């Protein structure tokens, strides 16, 4: 087993928690991406099991259903030889009336080093980070941030295009309810990309342009300018009421289909954070077509999460005498 280390010149990881991309610098984001690239390189040469987190415990605290992210974090921790414990809302005593705080404190009392938390309420990981001695990794909080998803989207783009600066990236769909959108916006802007958010006017929050993005309600108008198009899932479960008249109408204006692909740049990259609603945001033809990097995203999610766990762990090591 090998312990991988990477250092980007002059940058050291100093943060105790990973709560969002808003609070990271461009250098810190690049450090995570470089560390992930190193893990990917090692995996390619057969170094899939590393000893870096041996003897530590990573708890997956999922207060909201998730298969992909939970599995990805769990596997990332195991690849780094950490012990893992999984708590899901249905299996924990949350359903017996225990508060969020009690649950988290109980888990910490079991000697957990890092807590990966997914919660339907924005800010829940921030509250935990104030309460726990463990490092907190945000695995998606409400409609706020999903930093590892943002990082893996950016990592995937960087893999295909080498750099982010100068690229035009469109985030299409439900911006209002999307934590993926916010993390992408922060990360992409910090690395120098131009970001357009595009969707029905009901799903684009007011003031979003203050984050430095351009706003469009017309996918066909921006299609030709985009190097990358990230198709956000319509979050039916988070919507307070109907935000558009019908799925058919949504797909008509904002769905990515073969006809639109043909009008896009010839090397356009199609991303989707998934799980995708096939036939809504994206037709199977596009999802499974040559422009799609959707499966790369899943693969890259693993090394991004390894990189995050690894960097937070190293900082903990430096902190303790």
């Amino acid at each position, binding site marked *: 087993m090998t312990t991988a280390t990477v250092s980007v010149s002059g940058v050291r990881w100093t943060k105790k928690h990973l709560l969002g991309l808003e609070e990271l610098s461009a250098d810190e984001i690049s450090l995570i991406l470089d560390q992930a690239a190193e893990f990917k390189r090692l995996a390619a040469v057969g170094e899939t099991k590393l000893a870096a987190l041996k003897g530590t415990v990573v708890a997956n605290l999922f207060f909201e259903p998730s298969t992909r992210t939970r599995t990805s974090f769990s596997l990332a921790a195991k690849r780094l030889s950490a012990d893992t414990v999984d708590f899901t809302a249905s299996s924990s005593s949350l359903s017996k009336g225990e*508060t*969020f*705080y009690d649950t988290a404190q109980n888990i910490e009392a079991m000697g957990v080093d890092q807590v990966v938390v997914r*919660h*339907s*309420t*924005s*800010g*829940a990981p*921030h*509250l935990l980070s104030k309460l726990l001695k463990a490092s907190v990794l945000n695995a998606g*909080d*409400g*409609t*706020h*941030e999903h930093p590892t998803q943002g990082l893996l989207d950016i990592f995937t783009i960087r893999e295909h295009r080498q750099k982010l600066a100068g690229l035009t990236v469109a985030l299409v769909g439900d911006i209002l309810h999307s*934590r993926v959108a*916010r993390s992408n916006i922060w990360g992409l802007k910090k690395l120098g990309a131009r970001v357009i958010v595009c969707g029905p006017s009901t799903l684009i*929050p*007011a*003031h*979003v342009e*203050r*984050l430095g993005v351009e706003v469009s309600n017309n996918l066909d108008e921006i299609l030709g300018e985009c190097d990358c198009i990230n198709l956000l899932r319509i979050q039916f479960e988070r919507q*307070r*009421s109907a935000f558009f008249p019908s799925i058919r109408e949504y797909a008509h204006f904002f769905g990515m289909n073969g006809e639109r692909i043909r009008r896009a740049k010839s090397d356009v990259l199609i991303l989707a954070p998934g799980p995708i609603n096939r036939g809504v945001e994206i037709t199977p033809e596009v999802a499974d077509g040559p422009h799609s990097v959707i499966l790369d995203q899943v693969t890259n999610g693993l090394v991004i999460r390894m990189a995050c766990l690894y960097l937070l762990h190293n900082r903990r090591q430096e902190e303790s005498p």
Partner: protein
Amino acid sequence: MSTTLIRGGRIVDPSQNIDRVGNLFLRNDRIEGIDTGATVADHVIDAAGMIVCPGLIDLHVSLREPGDEKDETIESGTAAALAGGMTSVACMPDTSPVVDNRAAAEFVQLQCARAGYCNVFPLGAVTKNHDGQELAEIGQLVEGGAVGFTDAKSPVANAEIMRRALEYTRMFGRPIFNHPQVPELTAKGIMHEGYYSMLLGLRGIPAGAEVIMVARDIALAEMTGGHIHLMTLSTAGAVDQIRRAKAKGLRVTSEVTPHHLALTDAALQNYETNFKVDPPLRTKEHIDALIEGLRDGTIDVISSDHQPFAEEKKQNELDSAPAGVVGLETLLPICIKTLIETGHLTWSKLIAKLTINPATILGIQKGTLKSGHDADITIIDPVTSWRIDPSKFKSKGRNTPFAGWEVKGRAHTVIVAGRVRHHA
């Protein structure tokens, strides 16, 4: 026979346009008068450097009893009121069960008498169980002591019900207090809809939800001749509407809380539940409009909207935690900080909004130092600095957004019916 002389204080009584240094003389449970010439009394209180005013009245307080005694009891809530300088509070009927019948209103007064702290005036429900469907027995509630009617934090959403409620209460001369928010626009909202809600990914509550309901209620007040009191304003649009309604002479009154004056939606950046309130904290522009509304009399009253919650309820993620903060014990210093120290209001104007104005809305013979009235007096120390420490609250609720604030001014001595009930 017992007499009290409060000597040498700055007597501020907006009900009589008085603001001067003088002596206030009390006989038994009544006010005898100002500068009566009496120099001896059974009890003499030296009030030099203090403000002597009618006992403060808070017309928007939740005492939680019966039903939620873990959050607050009538005993702990009225003790907190006294500590904050209030001699009378009007309490919300949103208990469990709801105060929608005469027996419930009488129970509240019985518990208040047992506790023996400040005066409590119950508000009754507009609709049975606050369901918004059928009128509660409003006449019976009046006989049981209810001084006004409200469904507390549940807006009376149905315009037909509100119309009938305003018409019906008119015959008893009692106001309807509404929480002016359109429920469809506020559902599951956490904070003001604006830049910060977008940034933080927290579900927004648009200012328009309040403006629309205020406009509807004003139209209904005009239609019926009833008295609508609009609770806890938070928006510039609502202030505009009410200003115009008052200019037309309609029976519309309104209130604002100290936290809506002192804090903005930016406070939610730390995701702490003590900044989740209903209506939500707004922006500087809205605060400026609220202050202008206070200055020109559009907003009649400052209330605490005291909402105590047991720690385990508030110590939760934002979606699950209930909205609301305690306010009885911080109202006065926060008003001083936001309105007096900034020069927005004179002491006389501030005290009017805490005494004679709420008394007038509630239709109670309080809030004045006129001879023969109840000897409910608050003596305010306006200068001493202190630090807000929730662990020292008399209230069971520790859910304040002002923990750790350095503030000036507090209730020094509080007299209810001629007896000193609180002394700082």
